[in-house]
């Protein structure tokens, strides 16, 4: 496993894997959307608006998952200084930010007809907004520090501080009285959703996960290339400097 994390091997392996992953993501998302629209029934209370759940919940799960990916990569950067760890961190940021944005927007569009408001300063909603702001801050920090390995160390520290927010998001509905409903899939007593809605939801979550993984691998490949470009540009500048001297 450790040898696969060698950048040269990673580029070769991910190049072969990427088209298949992209194809699988498209296939599973198409299947998930068909199930969500044509198999899952309307909810007895929420009616057709329950179909927003098939986007909102997978986006929320994966927004948290990609933050965890960043946190694990941050440990890899700080503890082992592994060359691919900070590449993985950087590639995960826009994906996590986009998924958090999807979660917030679809949540607002679901909240308006169900709660009568697009937004309330509820613990779950506010902690998700904090997650989005964390992603934006991390994205900004990557762009602020020019040297990638220095940026990675600073970002790692910020990322690990932000991990505190993950249990707050997960348990906010249990710790405080919130308008947001409590956990109905990932809970100790098992899911409380009827299988006719649960299975389409799980297929959509798998589709989102495959798409996220595809984009993450693609982002990592781009970042490896970008650092190769940087190395070559520095070598060229050094050569021109020597010639001028």
């Amino acid at each position: 496993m450790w040898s696969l994390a060698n950048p040269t091997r990673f580029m070769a392996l991910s190049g072969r894997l990427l088209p298949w992953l992209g194809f699988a993501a498209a296939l599973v998302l198409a299947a998930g959307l068909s199930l969500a629209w044509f198999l899952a029934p309307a909810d007895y209370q929420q009616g057709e608006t329950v179909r927003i759940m098939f986007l909102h919940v997978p986006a929320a799960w994966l927004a948290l998952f990609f933050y965890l990916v960043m946190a694990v990569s941050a440990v890899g950067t700080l503890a082992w200084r592994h060359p691919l760890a900070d590449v993985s961190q950087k590639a995960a940021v826009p994906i996590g930010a986009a998924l958090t944005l999807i979660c917030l927007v679809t949540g607002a569009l679901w909240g308006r007809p169900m709660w009568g408001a697009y937004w309330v300063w509820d613990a779950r909603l506010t902690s998700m907004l904090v997650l989005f702001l964390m992603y934006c801050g991390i994205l900004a920090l990557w762009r602020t520090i020019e040297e990638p390995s220095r940026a990675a160390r600073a970002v790692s520290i910020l990322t690990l501080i932000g991990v505190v927010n993950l249990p707050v998001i997960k348990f906010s509905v249990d710790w405080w009285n919130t308008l947001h409903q409590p956990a109905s899939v990932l809970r100790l007593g098992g899911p409380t959703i009827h299988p006719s809605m649960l299975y389409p939801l799980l297929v959509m979550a798998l589709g989102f996960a495959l798409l996220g993984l595809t984009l993450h691998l693609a982002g990592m490949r781009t970042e490896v290339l970008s650092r190769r470009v940087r190395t070559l540009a520095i070598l060229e500048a050094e050569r021109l400097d020597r010639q001028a001297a």
Partner: protein
Amino acid sequence: MDLGPHAFFIVASYATTALILAALIFKAVLDHRAQVRALAELEARGVTRRSQDASADLRPQPSALHVPGSG
């Protein structure tokens, strides 16, 4: 399919998600192409690495030089 009185909210959710994901994919493709093009240009100018090992690119580099478009 009749989406009932809240059709706007359902359609807007799916449209926004599609738009955000499309933008994410589009940006990923553009970034990758830009780096491939930049690498090809440098290699065409005869710039080569001291080592052909890709991990050499990920080691810390001097920060004094700014390389436009390299992230």
